[in-house]
């Protein structure tokens, strides 16, 4: 099956960085990957949506996903566009402080995580997205945690190298903060199947 994911939040929260790290990690794990962003809303404070699809075989997914089976919610703002496209039973990994503001969660598997608080504990409030990345990887088995760390480091520009350590701690803390049993992806299955 193909794992499809929306990452939704506000420009400046590192949404695109999370998506890119996940995609690069999947490449490291030998997967086929697609990464699409929403353009035009890139400035800080606007809507930011990333789309990631991961599969074991060449992908069939469209660059604009009509539907997805999982989401990371960093903000409840601009959620409508993403929420309306989630298949029933989707995994929604949400920042704990905004989770209550997400509508229509009764059909989905909601996992909340105080990502910003965990990131702050790990030394960087800005690394909340990295906490989510670690948590998502651990929850779904989409990518190896070490791959996620390496992928994050791979794309950090030279002038931001000082953030790598805090980001790595955030990824690992995120992974440790969830129980990896609710939503496992079977990449080898021909059709979508959630354990």
């Amino acid at each position, binding site marked *: 099956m193909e794992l499809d994911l929306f990452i939704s939040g506000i420009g400046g929260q590192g949404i695109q960085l999370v998506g890119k790290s996940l995609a690069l990690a999947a490449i490291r794990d030998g997967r086929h990957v697609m990464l699409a962003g929403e353009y*035009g809303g890139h400035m800080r404070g606007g809507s930011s949506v990333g789309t990631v699809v991961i599969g074991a075989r060449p992908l069939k997914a469209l*660059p604009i996903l009509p539907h997805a089976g999982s989401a990371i919610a960093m903000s409840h703002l601009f959620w409508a566009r993403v929420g309306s496209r989630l298949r029933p039973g989707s995994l929604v990994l949400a920042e704990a402080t905004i989770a209550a503001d997400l509508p229509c969660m009764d059909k989905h598997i909601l996992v909340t995580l105080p990502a910003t608080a965990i990131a702050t504990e790990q030394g960087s409030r800005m690394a909340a997205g990295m906490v989510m990345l670690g948590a998502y990887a651990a929850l779904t088995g989409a990518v190896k945690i070490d791959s996620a760390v390496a992928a994050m480091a791979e794309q950090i520009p030279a002038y931001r190298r000082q953030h790598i350590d805090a980001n790595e701690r955030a990824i690992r803390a995120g992974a440790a903060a969830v129980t990896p049993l609710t939503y496992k992806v079977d990449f080898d299955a021909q059709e979508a199947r959630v354990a």
Partner: protein
Amino acid sequence: MPMRLMDGSEAIVEAAIMAGLRFYAGYPMSPATELLEYMAEKLPHHDGVCINAATEIEGVNMALGAAAGGFRAASGSCGQGLALMQEAIAEAALNETPIVIFNMARNQQDYFQATRGGGWGDYRTITLAPKDLHEAVEHAQLAFHLADKYRVPVIFMGDNLLARTQMGTELPDLELEPLPEKDWQLDGTSGGSGMSRQIWTFGCGKTNNPGPGPSLHWERIATKFDAIAEVEARHEQGFVEDAETLVVAFGSGGKFVEHVVREMRADGHKVGYFRPITLWPFPGDALEAASHGCKRVLVFELNAGQMIDDVKLNVLDRKLVKAIGGVSFDESGLNLGPLMDAGVIRERIELAINGASK
């Protein structure tokens, strides 16, 4: 090559360089800008040159110069930028200089521009419209091959989805037939030989080696395009054998329609899809065959109706042809709009089917 994550622009540039591209001159214009940026970054590492031209007109003429020198050369932009290049694209067709023009389009309103052209003369432009990054990697190589094979300009028609969506790719190297030496290239060495070389739209040749002259030259060019049309039309189709409804779409639209048609087939609808891969030559014979026995032929394109003309020209009963696309941009006016969405496309196909049966 190991799998690498790239956006379409980067993958196209890598594939073009792999195919031997050594010269690119362009002018920034969204969403073709990234193509120029990658060219500027990568070409110098391959003994190539990328120039930030002063205008699209200057850029495409630079490419003509590099190509006249025997090198694989390209320029690129999107719709309005290509409008500025039309004179040079026609010139390349008429003086037989092989160049590739990358159109990373904002929309699908450049269908007429690509397939009819805005330049002067009896010429056509081979136009490749890949559906996604993987096909784009192939087309970026094929474009240069076809350009050299026929000594014609080739248009590569992408869009913002193609340019910016990132995918893992191994950049497979396309196996293509070998081409003859470019014995026409201007390398400067034949001066004083009495048989110096010439690239000239009027085809008059030189005193010692006269050409056919304009009328015969242009007739020969026109005949060449007829011959290309005979053999280079490409298409992809699915579920056409028993289809009552055939949906025709190109580029990204073709990929979306294929997706929707597969979904609808799974739900029991007798729907098929047909995607022209070359917009020119238009795969008319194949479309005629695919549409045989259909009750309706739906055309999905993000414009007010351009490819639909070619569809009507090629299905046996043009009254079966109906547009289900339309003009659709995002808020910025620079990108494909909300019509490019699987759900919307399915609704429109279903409406066309149910509306017709009512």
